[in-house]
């Protein structure tokens, strides 16, 4: 059996292999008396007992260390998940941050191109946000952003992705949705936000929303499509705020 064993392990168990070889030699020696054999047998029994004792201890320690290792691994996975979450979320609103919502926008754009389906996006901005900050302070401003984000989150559909695009600006990506369907979502959001009172001061805000989809004017790049939603949002602001405007090519 000795020949099948890993040489590294043979070194780790060198005393045990040595003992085995010695006792094998004694067993073959015809000149050994019965008394001597009995003595050797006692020694062999004692080594076997020690070996068994060590084997059980080593196994127990091996199990403890394996458990420790797996627990460390689980903790690492947990930390990784937390780290990932914090890398994709906006700290104030806990919705996706700009880099992640842009990633999802890019993904949607690429998939739409590849599978020739459609997607929409909504760019929205809180109206007269500067006035809230100036009148009620930055804390109130932060609360307005947070609460507005919460209201929007409650109105989008499960497949839509939503993130903070800038200070008081948000972007929603709506896969497999045309501009008309996106408009219905946008209007629900607009009305909900307008009807919500925020904080102890019962602040009220409205939002303006711009919409475009991936078929209108067939944008060739992500930037081109974003530019169109931006124009639509600009028009919503210009024509009186608290409204939804879908981009049209002939404006």
């Amino acid at each position: 059996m000795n020949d099948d064993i890993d040489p590294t392990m043979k070194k780790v168990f060198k005393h045990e292999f040595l003992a085995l070889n010695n006792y094998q030699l004694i067993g073959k020696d015809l000149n050994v008396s019965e008394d001597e054999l009995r003595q050797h047998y006692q020694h062999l029994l004692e080594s076997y007992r020690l070996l068994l004792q060590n084997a059980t201890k080593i196994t127990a320690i091996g199990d403890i260390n394996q458990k420790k290792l797996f627990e460390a691994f689980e903790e690492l996975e947990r930390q990784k998940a937390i780290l990932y979450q914090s890398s994709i979320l906006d700290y104030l609103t806990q919705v996706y941050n700009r880099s992640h919502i842009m990633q999802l926008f890019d993904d949607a754009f690429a998939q739409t191109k590849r599978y020739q389906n459609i997607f929409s996006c909504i760019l929205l901005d809180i109206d007269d946000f500067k006035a809230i900050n100036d009148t009620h302070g930055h804390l109130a401003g932060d609360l307005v952003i947070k609460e507005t984000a919460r209201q929007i989150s409650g109105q989008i559909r499960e497949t839509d992705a939503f993130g903070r695009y800038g200070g008081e600006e948000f972007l929603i990506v709506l896969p497999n949705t045309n501009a008309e369907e996106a408009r219905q979502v946008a209007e629900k959001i607009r009305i909900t936000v307008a009807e919500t009172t925020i904080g102890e001061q019962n602040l009220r805000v409205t939002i303006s929303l711009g919409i475009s989809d991936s078929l209108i004017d067939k944008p060739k790049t992500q930037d081109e499509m974003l530019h169109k939603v931006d124009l639509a949002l600009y028009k919503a602001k210009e024509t009186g705020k608290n409204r939804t405007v879908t981009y049209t090519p002939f404006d």
Partner: protein
Amino acid sequence: MNNLIINAGKDTLNISCDSVTGIIDMRGISYPQDAADFFNPVFDWLENYINNVAADITLNLHIDYLNTSSTKCLFDFIDRLEDYYKQGNTVQVNWYHEAHDDDIKETGLEFQEDLELPFVVLAYSKS
């Protein structure tokens, strides 16, 4: 006789053996490719110490992780110390574990079981 110092590697213990005080310190984690090779110089140092200095020995263990081969090697090392102790010499083994680390404490208790030489399991707090 010389002291022996082995600096910790990525997968090996930090070991220091002091020929004057007879203090052997092992700390860190151990999962080398070849555990027997790694521990060989430490066994050699111990034989040398036992044969030439033949004074008291203290083994301090601050272990965080041992793979199975390293565990076996450490058992053999302690067995050798036990023989030395049974010959009438003074030997002390101290197994240190962080107060909250039950796994390392349990490992120490497993080592301690059935040994006839003085072996204590000691908690310390991370400061």
